[in-house]
């Protein structure tokens, strides 16, 4: 138990629950985390590929992956807070694997249970001819590195089409953020963050 911590920890677990893509079938998803220079993962998997799932037969037409996410980070600075980047792929008419959507969202920073539904988008071809050839050859426009989706720079030159949504749920636990002086909810400011460790463990 250190009295003056210099790092705080963020523990996230959760799942990529389901998705809603009205036009496609047989999809799988990949996830990865993007974070700043002050962050380092301490345990858990940074990347993963899910199973291939088909649409449900009922009226909702959901895709369910139920794919677990489990990772912990340590950091000295909230700048560069981790984001999860999800990319969804599926087969086209000719059987090639093409990208169906990219999406990114910040991991929530308040401890507790959170659900996020994020829109997914796909880069668009620059001309009608390119659109036809890419449909025909099965080589759609895609990002060379999906991590671009989590950054703000260089996006002004991309044209995208948004289609579909993905639902993720998270459970977030943080350690030592209050001890370092960070307030992530209004309730924190009622109780001063400077206190001894024994006081903190017995306070109700």
């Amino acid at each position, binding site marked *: 138990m250190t009295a003056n911590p210099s790092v705080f920890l963020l523990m996230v677990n959760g799942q990529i629950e389901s998705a809603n893509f*009205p*036009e496609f079938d047989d999809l799988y998803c990949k996830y990865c985390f993007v974070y*700043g220079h002050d962050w380092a993962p301490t345990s858990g998997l940074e990347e993963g590929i899910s199973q291939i799932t088909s649409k449900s037969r009922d009226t909702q037409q959901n895709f369910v992956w139920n794919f677990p996410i489990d990772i912990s980070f340590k950091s000295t*600075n*909230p*700048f*560069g*807070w981790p*984001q999860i980047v999800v990319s969804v792929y599926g087969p086209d008419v000719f059987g090639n694997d093409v990208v169906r959507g990219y*999406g*990114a*969202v*910040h991991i*929530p*920073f*308040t401890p507790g249970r959170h659900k996020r539904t*994020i*829109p997914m*988008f796909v880069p*668009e071809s620059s001309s009608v001819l390119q659109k036809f050839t890419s449909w025909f050859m099965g080589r759609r426009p895609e990002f060379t590195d999906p991590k671009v*989706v*989590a*950054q*703000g*720079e260089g*996006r*002004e030159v*991309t*044209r*995208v*089409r*948004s*289609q579909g949504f993905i639902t993720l749920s998270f459970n977030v636990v943080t350690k030592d953020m209050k001890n*370092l*002086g*960070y*307030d*992530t*909810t*209004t309730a*924190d*400011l009622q109780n*001063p*963050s400077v206190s001894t460790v024994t006081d903190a463990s017995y306070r109700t």
Partner: protein
Amino acid sequence: MAEVHVIGQIVGASGFPQHSLFCKWGVHTGGAWKLLSGLREGQTQVDNPQNEEMASWSHPIDIHFATKGLQGWPKLHLQVWHQDSFGRCELYGYGFCHVPSSPGLHELQCVTWRPVGSWQDQLSQLFIGGGVQLKNSDLIYSGADRYRLHTSAMGTVHLQLGVILRHFDRYGVEC
């Protein structure tokens, strides 16, 4: 010095007459604020939604400020533009909202407006597009010379901003 982290996304926009929209955003602060890391301004991708009414950008915002005072709390100002099939860009709206001053996650809807010109301007805008724009973009977030403007309402920009404050309780600030 107290610190403020703004971590969130410009989620998208709805209520605009056409699709194929992008947004230019910037953050304006007072003199006591210093930008420690992150980008102070940027531009989102151009989004053309397939099935939805809402254009989705999911543009990440991650800014770290240090401040010596409460005056000049950061304001996020936005310009929504439309890119047509010929590649021309047309202004669709200006808007601003303050970064929330309490820590936590906030869902914000930022309303936008567009300046309205004379009837000749409106007639030509109907046929060839374009329209009047502000010469000085400071007017988006300041109230100083607004009385000269005549504007009309446009759509809404949806934002999800998370705010983390540091050391504000040391200075006795309640927020």
